[in-house]
């Protein structure tokens, strides 16, 4: 009887405890899929990466779920976007995890926005302006030059957290950077027709993409970041559309279709649903796929 009980307890523990593969040496907790993908490109089999969110979740509105706390507890490196994107949940997950190594300020806490120059830094901070990010727009992942810059900084950080594998990370970055630069050349060539194309955006989530490709953003459907567009706002935009016509509306995969569909139907321009991050479409299964698919969709929309 007691033997049976002990066996059961051992069986239960053996299911619960070895949750983490033994081969990988660093557990990386990435807040969003793009940094998870980047960490995998650089770290290869030396890292065990978890993305805390999926492409279909609004990165501003994530809950500090127990599973995230459990995962943060046994991570050696947190890769966050920073610039207050994860302000609503990450600080709590980190504090609740009881893991001192991944607290802000420690080597185990990395912010991607620390490696790039942010756009749209607000001149004034007021919550009446909606969901403003004091540090600047945090949606940096849609400019491949940013990906490379973050990759370089992340490599240095991985090497700091796990010095034994520093050479492997450096080699991983070199491999990735070579492929990435080649791909960037390809993308920039393919995207030439997009230069100067006027577009509407659903949420101010594409400034880096627009800056890279030279898209001309006429404005956002959301009157204020994080505030859903009302009918008066959309009617006003429709008037502006008549004066200065945009060619398409850009919407991230996680967002509600209502306002962009309304606008598209009346303005007779296509809505281009962009994967926004890795996993946002079936083609965007990794970082290369993300940009391949983004460009393909933009070019189709601009035709």
């Amino acid at each position, binding site marked *: 009887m007691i033997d049976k009980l002990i066996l059961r307890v051992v069986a239960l523990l053996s299911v*619960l405890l070895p949750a983490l593969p033994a081969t990988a040496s660093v557990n990386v907790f990435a807040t969003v899929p793009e940094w998870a993908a980047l960490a995998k490109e650089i770290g290869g089999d030396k890292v065990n990466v978890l993305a805390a969110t999926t492409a279909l979740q609004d990165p501003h509105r994530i809950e500090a779920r127990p599973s995230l706390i459990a995962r943060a507890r046994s991570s050696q490196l947190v890769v966050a976007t920073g610039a207050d994107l994860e302000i609503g949940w990450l600080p709590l997950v980190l504090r609740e995890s009881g893991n001192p190594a991944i607290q802000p300020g420690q080597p185990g806490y990395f912010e991607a926005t620390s490696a790039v120059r942010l756009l749209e*830094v607000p001149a004034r901070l007021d919550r009446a302006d909606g969901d403003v990010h004091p540090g600047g727009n945090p949606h940096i992942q849609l400019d491949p030059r940013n990906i490379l810059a973050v990759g370089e900084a992340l490599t240095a950080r991985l090497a700091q957290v796990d010095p034994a594998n520093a050479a492997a990370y450096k080699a991983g970055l070199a491999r990735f950077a070579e492929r990435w630069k080649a791909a960037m050349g390809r993308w920039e060539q393919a995207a030439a027709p997009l230069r100067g194309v006027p577009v509407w955006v659903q949420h101010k989530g594409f400034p880096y993409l627009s800056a890279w490709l030279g898209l001309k953003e006429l404005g956002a459907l959301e009157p204020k970041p994080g505030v859903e567009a009302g009918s008066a706002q959309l009617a006003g935009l429709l008037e502006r559309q008549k004066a200065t016509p945009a060619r398409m509306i850009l919407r991230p995969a996680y967002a509600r279709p209502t306002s962009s569909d309304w606008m598209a139907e009346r303005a007779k321009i296509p809505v281009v649903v962009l994967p926004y991050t890795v996993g946002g479409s079936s083609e965007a299964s990794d970082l290369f796929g993300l940009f391949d698919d983004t460009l393909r969709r933009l070019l189709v929309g601009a035709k």
Partner: protein
Amino acid sequence: MKFVRPAALCAALAALPHAALAAPDAASEADLKQLRNQLRELRETYQQRIDALERRLADAEARSASAVAVAAEADRTAARAESVAKASAEPAPQRPAGESAFNPAVSLIIDSKFTRLQRDPSTYRIDGFIPSGGEVGPPKKGFSLGESELAFSANIDHLFRGNARFSLAEDDGAGVVEVEEVNVESLALPAGLKMKAGRFLSGVGYINQQHPHEWDFTDAPLAYKAFFGYRLQNDGVQLRWVAPTALFMEFGAEAANGGKFPGAERHTNGAGLWTAFAHVGGDIGESSAWQAGLSHVRTHPQERAFEDGGFTNAFSGRSQTWIADFIYKWAPGGNSRDTYFKLQGEYLRRTESGSINYGGDGNDYAARLRQSGAYLQAVYQFMPRWRVGVRGDWLRSGNVDLGGLTSAELPILAGYDPTRQSAMVDWSPSEFSRLRLQVARDKSRSGESDNQVWLQYVMSLGAHGAHKF
């Protein structure tokens, strides 16, 4: 200096050979001399002029060269300024310098209500249960300012984080400040351990750690009102440990003063109230998350006074409470922005054994009370910003043995099972504001039902920390 017009000069030069050729014979020595003089004069004048022009040219050249150099210098300065500007924009965001840079995060929660109550809130009681003495009743009828919460938090240094939360209210025209929480948390304990000391909301149960502005209904569950005076607030220490497993497992224990219900004011050394709790949680696929817990609270109140039957009575003995809690949240694809659903419930069971000192005759009577309560609530966000919710509350006064005393002496302990049903709808234009309408049918008083309508707003100003799961 003699001025020579270029036209005249040309004419003279042109005239010279002709003049010489025209009169070769007549040309006297004097004429020739005069001509030579004129020529020399012209040559000298010319030379001076050429020299002057050459000097001016050289000057101009020097000036333009230095202008080019200045321009180049300006370019370099501009580039430096740009790179400085870029560098300052690039890495760490600029922080304001000076003393204010280290100010703690401050937030103010404004929580006001308008109520329409069928019964007088000053007569509110939960029949069948020993009164907790806490603020369990509804606010006064009509408009009431309610409690505003003022909270501060910041990392103190590399080892500690401090939190403070005060509630500001008005009671009979006098301002009242209550210390809700003032505590220090550890930041750097190893191995998943966390320590907290000071006044804090106990980690038992689920809703106990939520501040009133985080509640899905305007008031606390009946079971919490009856067993903890709406929440268990400890002055003491807490130790928590998160297990290094994929499944979330958290274990905690607290030792506290136990000076408040279900404890009583103490005059002895050491701790008077102990708790132990465990929570497990995880995800079910992408769309669902859950958490469940089991908690225990144990205290030995001495002379815990309560008013009933026109006398002041007191309970002394042992009080033990068990809490089982669970929460389940669902959102399509895990994206809770548009729609989500949550189901939450807790079951509380308390056993108190000891003696009751009856104020009517001053004698002690052996007493044993086994009572329980539960609530179950569901909240559904059916479209962005709009939620509806229902809640049921049940209490069982259960098995009450009061020695020789009866409900004639202690009418509040007459057997009665209070219930309450609530429904609410709320609208949150942003994460920082919420407006709520709640209706409830409250049968806390034996034989009387109180139909309640609540209108409430909850607003968060300033820094606002993330909410717990």
